[in-house]
């Protein structure tokens, strides 16, 4: 079941838990836009320790390169897209 829809604005959790985390640090706390729902996948954060847990939705999230890097030198339309687990996405009002 998808919890977010394409076009929806989200904020990535600004959180730094220990462990096998697949959300790159450079995206934490940043705002992006959901591009697509890829499906539900095994949660790598749990699987990395040989445990099983509920599958998590994974979404493509698009970020403006200029929002990620204060000193980005390319054109304003350049983007970075990452595949993020649903528990890292926060809804924006």
């Amino acid at each position, binding site marked *: 079941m998808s919890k977010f829809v394409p076009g929806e604005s989200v904020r990535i959790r600004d959180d730094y838990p220990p462990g096998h985390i697949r959300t790159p640090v450079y995206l934490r706390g940043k705002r992006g836009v959901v591009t697509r729902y890829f499906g539900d996948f095994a949660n790598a954060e749990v699987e990395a320790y040989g445990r099983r847990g509920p599958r998590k939705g994974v979404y493509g999230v698009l970020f403006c390169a200029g929002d990620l890097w204060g000193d*980005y030198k390319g054109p304003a339309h350049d983007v970075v897209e990452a595949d993020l687990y649903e528990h890292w996405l926060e809804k924006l009002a």
Partner: protein
Amino acid sequence: MSAHEHDHGHADDHDDHRGHDHNAPPQPDDKVHSYYQILGIALKELLIEKGIVAAADVRRNIEARDAITPANGAQVVARAWVDPAYKARLFADGNAAAAELGFVIANTKLVAVENTSDEHNVVVCTLCSCYPRDLLGLPPSWYKSRAYRARVVREPRAVLEEFGTMIPDDVRLRVHDSTADMRFLVVPRRPVGTEGMSEEALAALVTRDSMIGVAAIDPPKL
């Protein structure tokens, strides 16, 4: 030279070249293994010693891995260029489209992204080295380097320029960071002057780097 290049490349280069004759052939046996390489070798030896796997199994698996080459991906790209219905299926379900040509992609989801006159895609895994190995084989060593992984999300146009690839400012650059189970295949633009070419001849034009997105495809030589 940027700070990144200095941090991630310069010191290593010098370590590699220290104390040997540049005219002598490389001596892989002289290499000092890293902690994790030693761990990997020890694990393999233990698995063999305990009879869990045989040395021949390990060798066969390496052979099977090495048999996968970018030519497989090139066939997928060429088919997508000549067959619009196949192209639609490729973008809808990459695994199923690859399977149509006999390429089995296990455990990951193949996602094709298309380079157009408006958008250029490039792929990285900033966390490690995720790559569509089941379709393209093993990634090039630079793809796994800290320099590429750190820089291509931060200054992608500068990195592409170092590959000889100039993306005009009116073309949007889209960097895909493979952080989960998706594996991205860039479908490069079909070069001009290839209108009458066969699918097989087209596939021969498609390079590994063009399917990662660090290069465009050169037009065929006349």
